[in-house]
């Protein structure tokens, strides 16, 4: 921890990214690669941090943190509500809707799961026949675990998009003041992931040492390049011998930030729902070193970009 404090002192004078306002996202092309392992332990290795679980379809970071004093808020989206007595069937709303969520056959039909809650139909209706109703899509939670504020997004089963939940989760976390923030992204490289990483300062790509792992790594690699984010890789489940993910990183000039071994002690603690950085001195040191490296990389990138 000493080097961590030292770095804070050193960097504050020189860089534009304030450590207490740094946002780091942890991504991978698929589930089960180690995003939660890395992000939970990075947050735990920092003395004070926020951990934000954006994996809203299956948030599991809090299985490790077991946060206390949980506060909960519902997340709703706006869905058009039609007053059939006012609607004259002009179809301006149907023509306007770019998501094709509306059809008019005898009366206006609303496809709620296709609706993106843009509110356009309400605006274009000359009859004022459309109002909006709240439709619950999930909830967000906040709790405390040691020095870590744990934020969790949870999507209701059957919902099509987690984006509104991730938006509310991240803006709620920001509204509570600046702190070092570790974002546990959803798996893959689609809308939910893009929403999670758009305001971050740095991306950590977690990869498995298999050909399948390389394929998934290449997907998130492409994504972070499109978003123009500085990034580095953490290779998880490393064994002796050939590591296709390492080869991919070397071939593509991706900085390898850490290699986590395929280790029985780690696996056992993790499967028991323990935070390894809080239980094992060896791993506390490893994640502390990784955190320092990430902070340094993010600040270097910010300096280069300004």
């Amino acid at each position, binding site marked *: 921890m000493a080097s961590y404090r030292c770095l804070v002192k050193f960097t504050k004078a020189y860089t534009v990214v304030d450590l207490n306002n740094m946002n780091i996202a942890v991504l991978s092309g698929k589930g089960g690669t180690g995003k939660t392992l890395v992000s939970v332990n990075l947050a735990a290795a920092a003395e004070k941090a926020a951990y934000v679980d954006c994996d809203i379809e299956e948030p599991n970071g809090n299985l490790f943190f077991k946060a206390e004093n949980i506060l909960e808020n519902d997340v709703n989206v706006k869905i058009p509500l039609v007053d059939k007595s006012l609607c004259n069937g002009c179809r301006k709303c*149907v023509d306007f*809707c770019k*998501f*094709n*969520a*509306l*059809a*008019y*056959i*005898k*009366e206006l*039909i609303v*496809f709620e799961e*296709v609706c993106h809650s843009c509110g356009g139909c309400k605006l274009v209706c000359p009859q004022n026949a459309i109002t909006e109703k709240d439709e619950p899509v999930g909830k967000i939670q906040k709790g405390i675990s040691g020095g870590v504020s744990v934020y969790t997004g949870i999507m209701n089963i059957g919902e*099509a998009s987690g984006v509104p939940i991730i938006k509310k989760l991240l803006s709620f976390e920001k509204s509570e003041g600046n702190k070092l923030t570790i974002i546990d992204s959803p798996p893959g490289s689609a809308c939910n992931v893009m929403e999670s990483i758009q305001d971050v300062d740095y991306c950590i790509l977690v990869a498995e040492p298999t050909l399948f792992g390389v394929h998934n790594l290449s997907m998130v690699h492409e994504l972070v390049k499109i978003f123009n984010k500085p990034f580095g890789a953490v290779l998880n489940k490393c064994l002796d011998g050939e590591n296709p993910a390492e080869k991919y990183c070397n071939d593509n000039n991706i900085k390898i930030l850490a290699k986590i071994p395929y280790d029985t002690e780690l696996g056992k603690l993790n499967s028991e729902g323990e935070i390894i950085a809080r239980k094992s001195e060896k791993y506390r040191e490893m994640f502390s070193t990784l955190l320092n490296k990430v902070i340094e990389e993010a600040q270097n990138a910010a300096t280069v970009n300004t």
Partner: protein
Amino acid sequence: MKIAIPTVKNTLNSNVSSSFGRAEYFLIYDTETKENLFVENTAKDSRGGAGIKAAQIVIDSKAEALLTPRLGENAAEVLKSSDMKIYKSIEGTAEENIEAFTGGKLSLLGEVHEGLHGRGLK
């Protein structure tokens, strides 16, 4: 009576399109006057909700029956609100399907798939 068929090209010997929402055209054929009209499917390139918009187009064409190999659940929901009869098309051209329909050889479409929702064939 007017019938609608999703097609690949705008000719009577075109094959029936394998997709309803993403079909290139809808053939609107009048079984009494033998007139035919090809309506472009402006829903085909939609990012989502193509079936909903395509169903609106078909209903607006005043067709009373639809001949299609398959149908997603959103499109089916829209068509259900009209009095449209939905038949399962046979392998082959639009023309062959018109013959089969007028000969009473087509059966009603029994099942509706859950929709491809943006993951469809292009």
